[in-house]
């Protein structure tokens, strides 16, 4: 089924047709199963609505994300952290020396100078409004990352300059620390005391936004900036 990963030869025609037929069959079967099973069962909106007042936020999605299923979000940030660590060396290997200056287009530079502060502002707003209306840590983080990308494209700013290490880890540490502290107080891990729930969620969201932005920028950075040719610094070439 899996061809040699990046060999350019397209799979023989016969196999392609067979594969296509199989997949179409599978899809139709799934569709039939869904159609036959009739309307979807009522989800958990009633339970969420009932528990929303105690969650400390109005936006149900944020409540679910950061209160009811906060464990999922914690693990999700861990996922980001994993990828960050996995792609870290490229970043450090490049280290301080700045590659030759990228030709700065005047038009883009001007636009960037105008846009970036605006984007950062909206990012901050999105973070804050998350508690009441659609928004939240991930969207804010992504937006800040977008701003970073713009800067990098504009050439004026090198992503390598970012202090990667503390930024990446801050989200994870804060979240776990709060969860543990709260667990000690209220007897259950990740169970915020109702009064302080709103504030705690905001603190966690802020930390999360920072580390998400940093991670996404890091990911883009190591792909965008040219890597010195030759084997990666630091990776010994054992015939593993």
């Amino acid at each position, binding site marked *: 089924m899996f061809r040699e990963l990046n060999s350019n030869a397209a799979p023989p025609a016969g196999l392609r047709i067979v594969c296509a037929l199989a997949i179409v069959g599978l899809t139709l079967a799934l569709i039939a199963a869904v159609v036959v099973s009739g309307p979807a069962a009522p989800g958990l909106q009633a339970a969420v609505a009932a528990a929303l007042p105690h969650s400390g936020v109005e936006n149900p999605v944020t409540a679910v994300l950061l209160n009811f299923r906060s464990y999922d979000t914690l693990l999700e940030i861990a996922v980001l952290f994993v990828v960050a660590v996995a792609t870290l060396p490229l970043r450090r290997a490049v280290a301080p020396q700045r590659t030759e200056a990228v030709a700065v287009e005047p038009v883009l530079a001007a636009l960037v100078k105008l846009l970036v502060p605006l984007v950062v502002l909206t990012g901050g707003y999105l973070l804050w409004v998350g508690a009441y209306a659609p*928004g939240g840590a991930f*969207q804010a983080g992504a937006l800040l*990352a977008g701003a970073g990308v713009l800067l990098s494209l504009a050439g004026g700013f090198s992503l390598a300059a970012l202090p990667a290490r503390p930024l990446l880890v801050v989200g994870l540490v804060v979240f776990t620390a709060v969860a543990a502290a709260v667990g000690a107080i209220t007897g259950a891990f990740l169970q915020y005391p109702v009064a302080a729930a709103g504030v705690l969620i905001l603190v966690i969201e802020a930390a999360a936004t920072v580390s998400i932005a940093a991670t996404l920028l890091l990911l883009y950075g190591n792909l965008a900036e040219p890597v010195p040719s030759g084997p990666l610094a630091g990776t010994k070439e054992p015939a593993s």
Partner: protein
Amino acid sequence: MPIDMTIDFTLGAGVLVLAWLSLSTTNLFKAIVLFISLGLLVTITWARLGAVDVAIAEAAIGAGLTGALLLAAWRRLRTVPGNTRRKAGDNHVS
């Protein structure tokens, strides 16, 4: 056929067509551009379905960032030094 069904049909059809085009094309750059446009269309679909948070996230991460990453990666693959075989311009697949 109430007005909204037509919107849903067009959105659904658009998403499917874009997806199919993006994956079946042989030219990498075209595929990436089509994928980014698919991302935007999906953002609209989420909005249509009332999932605003998700729409914002999809726009920022799904379409924006993933597109940026893909383009950066594509540029890296195209300009890797010493790669004589690659012609400048489209990195189409023979």
